[in-house]
C-alpha cells in the first residue's frame, strides 16, 4: 500500500504501450475498417447502378419488342397488299390474253368462213350452171345464159 517508484514504472510502461498501440495497432486496423467501409459503399453503389441499368434495359427491350411487332405487322400488311396486287395483275393479264386469243380465234373463224363462203359460192355457181346445162342440154346457149347464171351465183 506504499506509494513508491512503482508508479513511475507504471507510467513508463503505460506510455510505451500507448505509443506502440498508436504506431502499430491502431493505423492498420482503422485503415482496414475504412477501406472496408468504402468497399461496401462502392458495392452498394454498383448494385443500385446495376439495378437501374437493368430497369433501363428492360424498358429498352420492351420498346424494341413493340417496334419489331409494329414492323412485322407493317411488313405483313405490305406483303398482303402486294400479293393481292399480283393476283389482280395476273387476273387482268389472263383476261386480256383470253380476250386476245378469243379475238384472234374469231378473226380466224371469220376468215375461214369467208373463204369457205367464197369457195362454196364459186362451186354452187358452177354446180348450178353445170346442172342447168345438163337439164337444158344443148338447147340453151351457154353464152346467152351466162349472165343469168352469174346473177344467180351472186344472189347466193
Amino acid at each position, binding site marked *: *500500500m*506504499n*506509494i*513508491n*517508484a*512503482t*508508479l*513511475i*514504472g*507504471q*507510467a513508463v*510502461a*503505460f*506510455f*510505451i*504501450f*500507448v505509443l*506502440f*498501440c*498508436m504506431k*502499430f*495497432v*491502431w*493505423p*492498420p*486496423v*482503422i*485503415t*482496414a*475498417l475504412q*477501406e*472496408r467501409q*468504402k*468497399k461496401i459503399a462502392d458495392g452498394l453503389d454498383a448494385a443500385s447502378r446495376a439495378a437501374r441499368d437493368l430497369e433501363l434495359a428492360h424498358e429498352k427491350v420492351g420498346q424494341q419488342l413493340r417496334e419489331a411487332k409494329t414492323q412485322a405487322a407493317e411488313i405483313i400488311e405490305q406483303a398482303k397488299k402486294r400479293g393481292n396486287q399480283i393476283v389482280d395483275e395476273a387476273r387482268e393479264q389472263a383476261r386480256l390474253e383470253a380476250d386476245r386469243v378469243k379475238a384472234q380465234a374469231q378473226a380466224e373463224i371469220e376468215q375461214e368462213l369467208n373463204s369457205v363462203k367464197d369457195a362454196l359460192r364459186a362451186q354452187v355457181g358452177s354446180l348450178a350452171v353445170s346442172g342447168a346445162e345438163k337439164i337444158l342440154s344443148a338447147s340453151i346457149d351457154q353464152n346467152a345464159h351466162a349472165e343469168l347464171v352469174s346473177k344467180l351465183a351472186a344472189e347466193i
Partner: protein
Amino acid sequence: MAEQTASGYIQHHLQNLTFGKLPTGDWGFAHTAEQAKEMGFWAFHVDTLGWSVVLGLVFVLVFRMAAKRATSGQPGGLQNFVEVLIEFVDGSVKDTFHGRNPLIAPLALTIFVWIFLMNLMDLIPVDFLPLLAATITGDPHLSFRVVPTTDPNATLGMALSVFALIIFYSIKVKGIGGFIGELTLHPFGSKNVLVQALLIPVNFLLEFVTLIAKPISLALRLFGNMYAGELIFILIAVMFGSGLLWLSGLGVVLNWAWAVFHILIITLQAFIFMMLTIVYLSMAHEDNH
C-alpha cells in the same frame, strides 16, 4: 494457511512483493510489511509491475497480430474481435472528442483493454497465483498480489500520465498564457483590473483544485473499486479457511455471486477510466474561456 489468523491472512494478501533498498544497504526483496515501508519511495512493487507489463504485452501482441493480418476483405475471428473493440473505442472518442488528435483513440483503446485485463486478474481465485509463486520460489511467506489495479501506484501511475497529457495539450492548444488564464481568470471575472487582481487567488484556488482532482479521482476511483472488490474476495476466501462446512458452502455461493457482479464492475471501471480520460483531454483541447 490454516495456521494463520484471519487478519494475518488478509494482511498477507494486501502486501506487495517489494524490491528496494534493505536496511542492510543492499538491494533486495522486503520480507515483511515493515521492511517494505521503510524502503521509502525508491522501491518497486515487482508483482504489480510484472503483471501489468505482462498483461500490457498480451494486449499489444494480440492486437498487433490482428493488426498485421488486418484486411479490408472478410475479417477472421480475431480481427472481428479487435475490430469490435476498436470501433467501440473509436465511436466513444468521436462522440466526445471533437478535435483532431491521433493520440486520443489509441490511448483510449490502450487504457480500456489494459485496465480491463488488469482488473480481470481479480476473477482468478485469490490464492491461486500467490500459492503458485510461493511454490515456485519455495518461500511460503512470499507476498504476491496479482491484480495491478488494486495497487494505488499502478492507478496513480496511469492517472498521472493522463494528467501529464492534460497539461501538455492544455499548453499546446491554448499556449502557456491561455493555460494560466484558464486557471486564474475563471470562473470569476471582472472588467475592473483591481477587482480582477483580487479575484485571481480565488479563481486559482478553485481551478487548481478542479485540475488536481482530475488525476486523483481518476486513480482513486479505479483503485477504490478494485481494492474493495479484492478485499471482498479475500474475506470470502477467509470463509473457506474457517473449517466450517456450512460457512465454506456459503463462501462458494458468495464467491460465485460476487465474481459475476465483479465482471460488471471491472468492465465498467475500465470504461469509466477510458471515458474520463477522453473527456479530460477533450476539455484540455477546448479553448472556450
